[in-house]
Each structure stands twice: as structure tokens, then as C-alpha cells.
């Protein structure tokens, strides 16, 4: 673990001591090296045990895919931010990259934490760099409100989590993930236990987000600059899913009864946010709401606590992370050229930027869960296990799949096909950097078709 963590921490001095000519190239090269080395975590022994173990940090088959996704995303964020940061003073560029790197450090520590309070502190620590990225480098005045919504929604959910974890520590004596799966079941018979159950899960449900508490997400995703949108969509939402999967082991047997309203909310959210996507005019907002929709499926998959549910949730988290981040990068290519997020302003792009249309096509297909991509594998496993849990969920999940296909296709056809609008005629051609960004998103997805066992987790 230190093999990845120490180079990431040493990126910070490198950022501040590099010359301005070499800054972006050197940070990109080093973070790419760290990302490639982090792939070695995937081939550690995967038999439901912990690897790279010391008393504070460890990896196991659940956290490894998320760790690799996090490490993979840093060079991609740097590639994506290079253009719009080029006009800023050099020290502000250094601050921006330092924020991305410190976010990376906190995320590695969060996914690698073996003790729940450490996970909590790192979970909260990721809020500060994200807040600064959204409110300082966002582009519209709404970014201030977006930062407030983001910070306060997440904190209002996670402060009860702190109290709940400390209550758990009093009753069990230890909060280590290593021992929770072996500890005797808790005596959860009182009414206060139900409130404790809710306190444990609420933070992660707000972070995922669950449909009723999702209002921060469209604001934060839309107002953030491209690196902020990428890290939010790809990794920070998955912190909620990961936390839920870790803690739900202890929460039995209350979960069987108490999770009903949350499963219903999650599935209803899939349909509702999908329908909202069909009516969106703002491209980034559409992708943000589609994130809520996919995460609703993940939340439902985790809450039913079956092996296929957990596996499907983890696969969908990884696949959605890559897809959503790629879609935000594509939306950013539009934004950098037209400085507008309105879909209708930049239509018929296939005639103007044909190479980019390929990437739009492939990531739209990924978003609507086309086989044989891992997106389908995740969604199918969750939908099957939900059908097994209750046959009626098929109505909602089936409708959700249909609506997802509709809005993904709507997004593709509106931006790529059709008549060319006049603002589009004078935009600059695609950069090689943008193509590199897209292929770096797509390549992991395609390779995962060949060995999905890497991101299965320990349930199967």
C-alpha cells in the first residue's frame, strides 16, 4: 500500500517544485506510472481475505477495484484539465493540481482503511478539496450554492454516522473491518437500535445518492469544472456504496425489515431520474441525473444483501465510474468549444467532429448497458437478484432500463445527428489529448469484458 501512497504524497512537492514548462507533463507521467503500478493490487490473492495487510491499511477484493479506479482517474483528470487551466497563473494551476492530488491521497486512505473511524475521517476529508474545486474553479455563479448543498447534505448525513460508529465502539470495543465479519451478532431489539441502524446508513445513502436526498448531486456535478465532475461521478459516489457494503454486514437482522422504504425509494428514483433525463436541456445535468439513476440500482442491489446483489453493485460502480467520467469529458469538449452546456446549441456534431462521434457512440452504448460491456453485467446481476427478492421490482427495473436506453439515445441523437446549428461551424478540431482521454476511459471497460472476475468482489 505504501508503494502507491508514498509516490502519491510525493506528487505534492513535485507539483510545487517543477518548472512551469514541465508541470503538466511531469504530473501526468508520474500519476500514470502510479496508476499502472496500482494495477498490481488486482492480482493479489482474492480469496475473501485481506492483502497488503498492516494494522491501519489493507486491501481486499471489495476495495481493490475501487482503489484501482481512483488511481486510474488521476492522470485522466490531469489530461482533462490541461486546456481550461492553461490561461490561469502558474501558482493557481499548482494549487488546482495539488487539490486533485490531495483528494487522491484521501481516497486511497479511505478505500484502504481497516478501521471505521479512519474511513470516516477520510470520507469527510474528501469533502474539502472537492468543495474548493467546485466553488473556486466552477464557471457560473450557481457554484456557490452548489458548494453549500454539497457540503451540508453530506455532513448532515455523516454526523449521525459518527455518533453511530462511536456507539458501536462502546458496545463492541473495536471498529476494525478485519473483525466485524467475525464478531457475534449485535443485540438490536430496542427502538433506539432502529435509529442507530438509520444513522449508520444515512451518510452513505446521501452520498450515493438515494433518490430523496439527491438534490446536491445535479448542482455539484454541473457547476464543477471537468476534473471535479470526473472525480465526483467516478469515485466519490462510490465511497457511499463502498461504505454501505462494509457496514451492512453488522446491521443484520434489522436490515430485512428496515430496508424496505430505502429499496423502494432507490428503485423509484431509477425511474424518476431517468424520466427527468428525458426532459433535460442541459447536457451535464442529464449526465448527472443518469448517475443518480445508476446509483439507485446500486443502492437497491446492496440493500437486498445477496451475493449477486453485492457483485452486481460493485461491477456497476466500476463500470458506471468509467462511463460517467467519460461522458463528462465528452460534455466538456462541447463546453470548451461553445462555452454552453445547452444540448440544442451544438447539434449535428458528427459532421463537424466525426472522430469524437465515435467516442460519443461508444460511451452512449456503455451508458445504456449494451452487452458485452461490464455495465450490462452489473445491471443484469442486480436486476436478477432484485427479481429473486421480489418479482414486482421487475416493473420498476425494466422500466428503468427502457428509460435509460431512451435518454442515452436521445442525448446521442441530439448532439451528434441531425442538422448542424450555426454556432458549431467555427469550432476547433479535436485534440489528440481528448482522444487519449477517451481511449484511456474505454480501454479498461473493454478489457474488463475479458476478465470481469477482477471486479467481482468477494461475494462470488
Amino acid at each position, binding site marked *: 500500500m505504501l508503494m502507491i501512497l508514498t509516490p502519491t504524497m510525493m506528487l505534492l512537492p513535485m507539483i510545487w517544485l517543477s518548472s512551469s514548462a514541465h508541470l503538466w507533463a511531469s504530473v501526468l507521467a508520474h500519476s500514470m506510472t502510479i496508476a499502472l503500478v496500482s494495477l498490481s493490487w488486482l492480482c493479489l490473492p482474492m480469496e475473501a481475505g485481506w492483502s497488503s495487510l498492516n494494522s491501519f491499511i489493507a486491501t481486499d477484493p471489495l476495495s481493490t477495484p475501487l482503489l484501482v479506479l481512483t488511481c486510474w482517474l488521476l492522470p485522466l483528470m490531469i489530461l482533462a484539465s490541461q486546456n481550461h487551466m492553461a490561461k490561469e497563473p502558474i501558482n493557481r494551476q499548482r494549487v488546482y493540481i495539488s487539490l486533485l492530488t490531495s483528494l487522491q491521497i484521501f481516497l486511497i486512505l479511505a478505500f484502504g482503511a481497516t478501521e471505521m473511524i479512519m474511513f470516516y475521517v477520510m470520507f469527510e476529508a474528501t469533502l474539502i478539496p472537492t468543495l474548493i474545486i467546485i466553488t473556486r474553479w466552477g464557471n457560473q455563479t450557481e457554484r*456557490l450554492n452548489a458548494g453549500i448543498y454539497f457540503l451540508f447534505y453530506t455532513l448532515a448525513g455523516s454526523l449521525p454516522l459518527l455518533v453511530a460508529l462511536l456507539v458501536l465502539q462502546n458496545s463492541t470495543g473495536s471498529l476494525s473491518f478485519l473483525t466485524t465479519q467475525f464478531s457475534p451478532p449485535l443485540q438490536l431489539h430496542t427502538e433506539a437500535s432502529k435509529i442507530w441502524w438509520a444513522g449508520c446508513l444515512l451518510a452513505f445513502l446521501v452520498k450515493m445518492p438515494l433518490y430523496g436526498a439527491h438534490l446536491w448531486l445535479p448542482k455539484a456535478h454541473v457547476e464543477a469544472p471537468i476534473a471535479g465532475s470526473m472525480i465526483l461521478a467516478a469515485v466519490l459516489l462510490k465511497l457511499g456504496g463502498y461504505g454501505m457494503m462494509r457496514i451492512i454486514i453488522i446491521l443484520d437482522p434489522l436490515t430485512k425489515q428496515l430496508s424496505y422504504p430505502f429499496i423502494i425509494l432507490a428503485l423509484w428514483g431509477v425511474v424518476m431520474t431517468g424520466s427527468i433525463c428525458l426532459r433535460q436541456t442541459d447536457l451535464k445535468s442529464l449526465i448527472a441525473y443518469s448517475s443518480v439513476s445508476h446509483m439507485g440500482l446500486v443502492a437497491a442491489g446492496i440493500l437486498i444483501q445477496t451475493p449477486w446483489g453485492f457483485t452486481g453493485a460493485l461491477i456497476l460502480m466500476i463500470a458506471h465510474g468509467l462511463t460517467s467520467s467519460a461522458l463528462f469529458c465528452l460534455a466538456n469538449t462541447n463546453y470548451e468549444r461553445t462555452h454552453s452546456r445547452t444540448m440544442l446549441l451544438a447539434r449535428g456534431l458528427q459532421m463537424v467532429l466525426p472522430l469524437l462521434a465515435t467516442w460519443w457512440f461508444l460511451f452512449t452504448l456503455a451508458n445504456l448497458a449494451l452487452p458485452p460491456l461490464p455495465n450490462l453485467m452489473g445491471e443484469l446481476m442486480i436486476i436478477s437478484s432484485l427479481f429473486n427478492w421480489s418479482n414486482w421490482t421487475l416493473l420498476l427495473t425494466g422500466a428503468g432500463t427502457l428509460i435509460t436506453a431512451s435518454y442515452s439515445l436521445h442525448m446521442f441523437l441530439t448532439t451528434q445527428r441531425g442538422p448542424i446549428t450555426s454556432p458549431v461551424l467555427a469550432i476547433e478540431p479535436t485534440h489528440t489529448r481528448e482522444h487519449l482521454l477517451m481511449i484511456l476511459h474505454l480501454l479498461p471497460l473493454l478489457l474488463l469484458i475479458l476478465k470481469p472476475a477482477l471486479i467481482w468482489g468477494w461475494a462470488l
Partner: protein
Amino acid sequence: MNPYVLSILLMGLGLGTTVTFASSHWLLAWMGLEMNTLAILPLMAQHHHPRAVEAATKYFLIQSAAAATILFASSTNAWLSGQWDIQHITHPLPTVMITIALSLKLGLAPLHAWLPEVVQGLDLTTGLVLSTWQKLAPFALLLQISPEIPLLITSLGLISMLAGGWGGLNHTQLRKVLAYSSVAHLGWMMVVMQFSTSLTALALLMYVIMTTSAFLTFKLLKSTDMNSLAMSWAKTPSVTALAPMMLLSLGGLPPLSGFLPKWLIIQELTKQELGLVATVAALSALLSLFFYLRVCYCLTFTSSPNNLAGVAPWRLESKQISLPLATSTSLSILLLPISPAILSLTLPLF
């Protein structure tokens, strides 16, 4: 101010607190508190501005009323128990009176109404002394008597947290914001006092460090309201970059050091089966976080030409010594990873 007069006043301040720390007799403790009050009054009124003189007058009246109540309560205790020892107050009547009198001295809600206007009338240095040094002596007395009246202590603490959070929400004057932040932090200190006096002392220590950093930052930026913070990025980019971290630390966000007292206090409260109090306390911290965040927005997260409400103050060269600011800001951001060391230093002492 004449340096001889200033040195006498500062010595008086130091001596007053030291006398209160060292005393075991109530009359000597009262004398130390009165010396503190009298020594700071000329410091408050030194600029002869009407608001400063008004602040000094209000401060004098409040603190004298509190000191008189302490005198009365300790006399009552002497009558009831026959001795003047500070640690041997057993009868509930003098205990309650002394607790309320010390709350008035500190500015705990519901006895906090004087604090915002007094701090607003002072310049930033005297405000710093009022918010940090003047809190030490009453806390020394409170920690020694450790009143065991759960209803009084917990309600003083909770009401202070909520009053400090809600009260500070609509202000643009930075000194008033810091006064309400003081009320909220004092609430956190009170709520854990009956269970662990060392955690109260730790919370007080962290609060002093963070408030020192806040006041010194605003003094360096020569700004007393939020509009004049707007051009700080042009004057001192490094302070502008670090001050949001210090303000978010005041708000209690991990991984900054302000999280440490809140975490330990919530842990102690849950150990004592007070989970509901702990949750209300944690959520009330969100109220104060909102106005700290708003100061961060004005200071760093919006910058010209996007911030139309900001004014550009004169950019005069600042002759402030930067070591206290640098030390207190570093401590208020970076102490969380060494919390076991801090705990081992403070826990045995109190």
C-alpha cells in the same frame, strides 16, 4: 498607548489570571477575576471611540455583576459549610449560583447577549485578548468545582451551541461572527465538563489556538467586515489560501485539528449514554459551519472580477510580526494526526 501604561495593564492582566489559577480561597479567586476586568478596561477604551467606550462600559457592568454574584455565592457557601475552599462547594445553592455567574463571565448562552456587541466595539487585538485570555480564569474555576448538576450544565452547553450557531448566521461583521463562534465553542466545552474535565481543557486549548489564528488573520488583512476581505488574494495569496483551512477547522471538519475536540466530546457523550445530546451537538456544529463557510467564500472562493460586493481597502505595508499567525494557523490545521500525543499530554494534567 504609552508603553509604561501598556506594560502595567498587560502585567495586570497576567497577574489576575495567575492569581485565579493559583488560588484555593474564593476571595483570592474573586480578586484575580476583578484584576482581569479592571486591567482590560483601559485597553478596551484606548481609542476613545464611542463604540469602544460603550463596549468597555457594557463589559464592566456585566463582569462586575458576575463577580458580585461569585462573592455572594462564596459567602453563602462559607455560611453553609464553614470554609472558603474552592474545591469543597457541596451545597447545590452556591454551586448553581457560581456556575451561572461564571457562565455570565464567559458568555455562555443564555447569558451571552453582551458578547457580540462588546467584541464588535473593540479592535482586533483587544478582541483577541477578550476571546482567549479572559476565558482562562473562569474556566480554571469551573474545572475545579466541576458542578454535578447535569440538567444545568447540559442545557447551558446545548443552548450555547444552538444560540451561537443561529445567532451568527446573518452577520457580515467579522468580530460579531467570531463572538458567536466563541459562544458555540464554549457550549461544546460545557457539555462534556461533568464527565471529563481534561476534554474541556483540550477543547479550550484548541479553541484558543484557532481563535488566535482567526483574529491574527483578520488583523493582517486589516479587515473587519466581509466585504473588505475580497481583495486579500492580491495582498497575501498564501494567507488567503490557508485561512479557509483555519476557518473550516473552527467549524470542526475532519481532517483538520478542530475535529479533534468534537470527536472526543461526542465519544465521551456516547459512552455516557447521551447519544441524543451528541447528535444534537454534532448537527448544531453545521449551523456555525455555515457562517465560517460564508467567510471562506468572501475571502478565497470568489475572486475579482466575480465578486462585485467586495471593496478594495488601502494596501498599506503591514508591520505585523508573522510568527504568531504562522504558528497558530499551522497548529489549527495540522494537529489531528498527532492526537494521541496531544491526549497523552492533556489527559493526565486535569
